């Protein structure tokens, strides 16, 4: 998940679709995010590369929509509904996730274990 500035980022991503839940007059997703280009990347406990300023999932409320959709804590969000999340500020990320007009968000997330899984699958396919 580390990136070289100026080069395109390559990662193994997973598509997750979360249905927003209506709570009162708000639509919520049931998880918390941390990170952003205006934040201190060294404080992020989930990133491998401590200069990574991407948006990470820091908490999942159990039983919420994100939990149901198999989002895990520590996932890095690469895109939200087509919007890029790797180079945004914290507030921009929040806005993209909490648009009240949309009731479903499609995320592209990446995590370390995905790469392992893909590599294993390739090996078993090839051998």
């Amino acid at each position, binding site marked *: 998940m580390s990136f070289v500035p100026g080069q395109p980022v390559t990662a193994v991503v997973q598509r997750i679709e979360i249905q927003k839940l209506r709570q009162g007059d708000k639509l919520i997703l049931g998880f918390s995010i*941390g990170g952003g280009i205006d934040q*201190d990347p060294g404080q992020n406990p989930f990133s491998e590369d401590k200069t990574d300023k991407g948006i990470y999932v*820091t908490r999942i409320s159990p039983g919420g929509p994100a939990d149901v959709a198999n989002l895990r804590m520590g996932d890095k969000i690469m895109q939200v509904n087509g919007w890029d999340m790797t180079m945004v500020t914290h507030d921009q990320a929040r806005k993209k996730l909490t648009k009240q007009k949309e009731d479903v968000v499609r995320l592209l997330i990446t995590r370390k274990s995905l790469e392992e899984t893909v590599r294993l699958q390739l090996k078993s396919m090839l051998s």
Partner: protein
Amino acid sequence: MEVEVLQAPDGCEDVDEVKEVVVSTIEEEFNTSSPPASSCGRGAKTSQDDNWGETTTAITGTSEHSLSQEDIVRITKDLEDSVGLDCRRYFTRAVAVILGLLVFLTPLAFLTLPHILWPEKLQSCGTACEGLFISVAFKLLILLLAVWALYFRPARAGLPRVFVFRVLLAVLVFLLVVSYWLFYSVRILDSQDTNYQGVVQYAVSLVDALLFIHYLAVVLLELRQLQPCYSVCVTRSTDGATRHYNLGQLSIQRAALAVVENYYSDFPIHNPALLSASKSRAAKHLAGLKVYNVDGPGNNTSAGLVQSQSRAMIAAAARRRDTSHNELYYEEAEHERRVRKRKARLVVAVEEAFTHIKRMQDEEQKKAPGDVMDPREAAQAIFPSMARALQKYLRTTKQQHCHSMESIQQHLAFCITNNMTPKAFLESFLTPGPSLQYSRDHWRARQWTLVSEASVTSGLKDGTTFLLKCVDFSLVATSKKIPYIQMSEEYIDPKSHKFVLRLQSETSV
């Protein structure tokens, strides 16, 4: 047990036995006078009989020409002291003068002897040689000034033992001069060397060597002890006032001298009146206890008796409900209050007194020639209005013997002359200053005794302890080595001071 005391009319009969009772009462403990004309306690070691001497016929007075034992001791001590001290001082001075003359006259003798003894055989002195004359002259002048600067200073103290370094240097100088004379007499005088330039160079080399010895003297006597090596902690035995001084590598006697000189300017003056309170408290602790010996004379070994007595007294005192701490607390609070009240009155009185006079300006001098006073008269004029308050304050703080009326008026005149404020005038009374501040008879103790287990000419070491005794108190000094300091450096680039915000927001969506 009972006491049997037989009364004998003429006081000289034997009595059979007396059972001893050891009683120590409150008032009569130190009173050895026996009750008048009543008992004759024979066999008791503490009682005396007044009537005993009246029936004897021998006369044991001292005649006019006899000396008692104390007189003899005193005279020999005086003799020893005066002869000993003067003898040593004169001896030292004589040695110094002889050595000085030897040192200065030797090069001149080296230069002039060939001219006197074999003038016709001598080669004439060329320009280089005459240049050397000038060099010898100036070097001797420099040596003279240097010796005057280093050695001809008034002695500050008389120390118990000789100063080892000085003796060593004197011996070295003496050996040097003697060895030069030996060489000169054998090689030049005996063989009547004709090369005068060689002789002059020889004399110049002697003066150079003497200058180097003088350099050695400066390093050993003056420079070596400047670097602080030991921290000496000095405590006064009577009231515990403590100061710390940093000294270099000195012998114990020189360190003691440094301590005494610093004592006069740093320690507050020793006031015996302030110690009487604790002494009276100490006397009250063991008072009021009576010890009775109920075992009789069979258990009479005196050491065991005294020990068991004192142990019994300690146990009894520990068990007794002692309220002296209570008294101390309230007494101190009361004293504090009294001192503050007197101080307030004093400050107001002095401030008021100072407003009565003012410094006369020059232009007023022509206008009012009547009541012009000099500082002493001005002081005498305003002193009576503050005298009472000042005296009461001094009595309360037990300082009245430190300041005489004359000294107070002198101090007041001094303050008026130098335009000091009332507060500046009062400062010397409100806080007890160092001993040098007071009049001469207060630091009359210029006779100090150095008590030390190690030899006083040996150097200070870590853990050396010595005692300086004077008449009223003693100073206890302990030395500790200043530790070796290992310092390392760390370089910080000024551009490396950079800061970022520590933000870690977490938002729930």
